[in-house]
């Protein structure tokens, strides 16, 4: 459905060039959920922004159902913009506090079509119902809702144009633990009901395992490992993925965390290390890792690691 090919984005700053995204190629299957995983600053949000056309790539292509987004004509791009919608992390920041919920939801609809008043009200009532809010919510302002309800409003707005792909940027990380499950279940119900494709950005690996069908692990702007979520989590091949999974604290007092798997600090994208970008932290790094960028190899479960032919961790 969506193909990213060689996507690259650099930012020129006073201090030099930030290599935020470097040669990222990924595929989203229709009806699937691809999770982008990685530490803050690894480039996952920049990838999402390029998909949403909020940023333009310096190199590489984004193809939506075979059509290159960069070469779409006005009409096609208009169509793309209603097919691809987003839900952001913080529902306190993403909803305009001065607008009533009805207008918040109507805004994207009116940007694309001219429905009559009655048809518009009906659409608003429909999407509110889908996200589990009463029709009376339409008359209220965002501050009259809790965080979980606000995120439902943001989801309703994203749904209003019946998109086909939704970009979910940390959709529950600003919510309380007891509310997260409500919103995650809602997102799964909506996906099943409308056959949506999701791209989710998340740092909570347990959530990613639960929620996604495919996963791409990003480290300093490059894909370290990608594949079906179940396979990647059951047998991580890249030492970085292994380190990530070993560092997740489990709700189990007898689980022992491994600090050794990724020592040191995350390097800067301003001055990334040569070769494999993980090599300064990698417990298994060898000479080749310090000089040569490893290619992403394997299908559908791929890893970019020179040592990947060695037996994976047991």
């Amino acid at each position, binding site marked *: 459905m969506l193909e990213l090919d060689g996507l690259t984005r650099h930012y020129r700053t006073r201090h030099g060039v930030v290599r935020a995204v470097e040669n990222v190629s990924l595929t989203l299957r229709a009806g699937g959920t691809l999770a982008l995983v990685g530490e803050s600053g690894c480039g996952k949000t920049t990838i999402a922004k390029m998909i949403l056309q909020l940023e333009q790539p310096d190199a590489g292509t984004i193809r939506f159902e075979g059509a290159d987004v960069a070469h779409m004509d006005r009409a096609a791009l208009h169509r793309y913009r209603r097919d691809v919608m987003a839900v952001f992390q913080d529902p306190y920041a993403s909803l305009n506090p001065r607008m009533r919920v009805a207008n918040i939801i109507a805004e994207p609809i009116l940007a694309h079509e001219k429905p009559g008043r009655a048809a518009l009200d009906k659409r608003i009532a429909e999407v509110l119902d889908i996200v589990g809010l009463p029709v009376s919510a339409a008359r209220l302002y965002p501050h009259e809702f809790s965080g979980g309800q606000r995120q439902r409003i943001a989801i309703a707005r994203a749904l209003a144009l019946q998109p086909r792909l939704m970009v979910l940027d940390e959709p529950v990380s600003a919510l309380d633990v007891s509310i997260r499950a409500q919103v*995650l279940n809602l997102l799964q119900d909506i996906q099943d009901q409308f056959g949506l494709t999701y791209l989710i950005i998340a740092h909570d690996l347990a959530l990613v*395992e*639960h929620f996604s069908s495919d996963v791409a692990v990003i480290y300093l702007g490059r894909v370290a490992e990608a594949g079906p979520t179940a396979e990647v989590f059951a047998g991580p091949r890249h030492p970085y993925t292994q380190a990530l999974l070993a560092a997740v*604290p489990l709700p189990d007092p007898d689980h022992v965390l491994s600090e050794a798997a990724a020592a040191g600090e995350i390097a800067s994208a301003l001055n990334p290390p040569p070769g494999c970008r993980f090599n300064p932290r990698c417990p298994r790094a060898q000479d080749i890792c310090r000089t040569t960028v490893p290619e992403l190899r394997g299908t559908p479960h791929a890893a970019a690691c020179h040592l990947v032919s060695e037996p994976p961790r047991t």
Partner: protein
Amino acid sequence: MLLSVRNLQTHLHLRRGVLRAVDGVSLDVAEGETLGLVGESGSGKTMTGLSLLRLLPKGSGRIAGGSISLDGRELTTLSESELVREIRGRRIAMIMQDPMTSLNPVFSIGDQVGNPLRNHDIARGTAVRAAVVDVLRRVRLPSPADRLDDHPHQFSGGQRQRIVAAMAIGCTPRLLIADEPTTALDVTIQVQIIGLLRQIQADTGAGIILITHDLGVAASLCHRIAVMYAGQIVETGPVRRIYRQPAHPYTRALLEAIPRLGAKRGRLAAIQGQPPSLIDPPTGCRFAPRCALRMDKCAEAPPEITLADGHRAACWKLADA
């Protein structure tokens, strides 16, 4: 007992009314022990921590009742100047969530880590610098002697949290309150800070109160857990009891609601509804409106039931069993 809190009541006087942020909290922390104060935002866990240091919001916050005793000394009756001189930063220190807000961007880290040492007469004059290097070494900041004149922005997030920890442990406090100390950090850095807190405790024997909403972080670091809901502790016990045999319906629901790595679940068991307002909390059990096991009796305040050594929960269901 290092710290004993009994029936603590902390009120916030707001325009809308009096918010009972902490409503009858009792807890103990032994030397060398880590107590996890677990709950959602607004449950009163941070207010409990701030009450111990009497660092409540100016004007609106005040301790309305209860007692706080540290090494047998009552803190609620101390004057502000006694607190500043003898307790805050000296015997009880705090590590906050976001290192960028607890560090001052315009002062060097040598100054900031040295301040509590000077204020509490741990080191004087030229000895301060050496003491700062020593404490930065203890939090495993790389090459500390070369970096004393650097400013907070010159460090990574994980390093900043190490510097904040150094500020807190410089005076070897008896009790360390760590409020979401890893929440702003990435997971591979988080595990390093968890290791650091463990090491600080092993070195100094300090008691730690870990305030967190993350049930994974709490499990990895704590000896005992107190689960807070709507300003009250609903269940407390040894960490294994809480995770293996949770008794209170809220604790059970929380553990069911989170996805677990390596244990794929069909659908998460969501908790319906949301926490009550603490300006006008429901009488009786505060979780009752969201509880699947609710009974008529829950309209009255539930009794605290002892289930095992040190394992207690406040629920009518347990009283009947």
